[in-house]
């Protein structure tokens, strides 16, 4: 994935960049399967590698351009990114280690959900149960966000008149 990232950063052919971003999403989906996040992997694969790539290609078709050669060397953004990265690394040193069963997230709410799910909801898929039942309000908000995005795209791209010939 790091290699894909470097090629995306360096390449100027936008079509290749978009295809590589789809590849990156697929790789991320396999990493998530390795992390036991099967629902998330399915969503990332279908949304990131499927819908995102289609939308990017549609926008590229409408925009029709290649990336121009950058005018100045990107030293300042590089330094900024690296410093943000250094601060983040310093911050994450305080976080729990990988796969530590005594980490706080495994101790408070999750055991209650996992243990009580059988008699309260009786749905084997924990993620669906939490998403639709225990945290149903969040899903309502998310559905509204998706609807708003659709409405926004309609508002932006609605054609009331002939577009000028480019």
């Amino acid at each position, binding site marked *: 994935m790091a290699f894909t990232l470097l090629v995306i*950063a360096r390449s100027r052919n936008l079509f290749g960049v978009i295809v590589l971003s789809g590849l990156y999403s697929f790789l991320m989906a396999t990493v998530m399967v390795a992390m*036991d*996040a099967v629902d998330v992997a399915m969503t990332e694969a279908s949304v990131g590698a499927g819908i995102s790539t289609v*939308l990017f290609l549609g926008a590229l078709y409408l*925009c029709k351009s290649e990336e121009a050669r950058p005018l100045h060397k990107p030293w300042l953004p590089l330094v900024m990114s690296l410093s943000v990265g250094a601060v983040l690394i310093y911050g994450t040193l305080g976080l729990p280690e*990988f796969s530590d069963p005594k980490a706080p997230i495994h101790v408070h709410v999750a055991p209650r959900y996992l243990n009580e799910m059988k008699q309260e909801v009786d749905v084997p898929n*924990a*993620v669906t149960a939490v998403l639709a039942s225990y945290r149903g309000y969040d899903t309502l908000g998310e559905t509204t966000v998706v609807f708003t995005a659709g409405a926004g795209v309609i508002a932006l791209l609605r054609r009331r*008149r002939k577009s000028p010939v480019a």
Partner: protein
Amino acid sequence: MTPTGTALTLGGHFTYFITIFLMIGGLFILIARGNLIKKLVGLGIFQTSVYLLYIAPGKLVGGTAPILSDAFTVYSNPLPHVLILTAIVVGVATLALGLALVVRIREAYDSIEEDEILGLDAGPVRHEEAR
């Protein structure tokens, strides 16, 4: 910290380092490149690395996917999965709106390079046709 203590800490935090590397890469593409579509690709990479940042701590080695069954006793934590599921869908909604904006910018300014757009903005802009 003793040398072995440092090594253990680094070994346990390995996933965080990978995630932060991907995050820096996405952030760099977002800031350093002028092409608007490439910026959106960088934003997507940044978002994906944030998903990994949340999901990696939820995994328990020896556990399994959080689908209850009588054959397993240890499950990975389902809560980050729920949050990230929402985040992925919101991310694609943001991406769709961003791409719609890029298409409109292209029609108004005839370019999707950030430098050219800022230069055009300083001068007269081609007006949009009457609605």
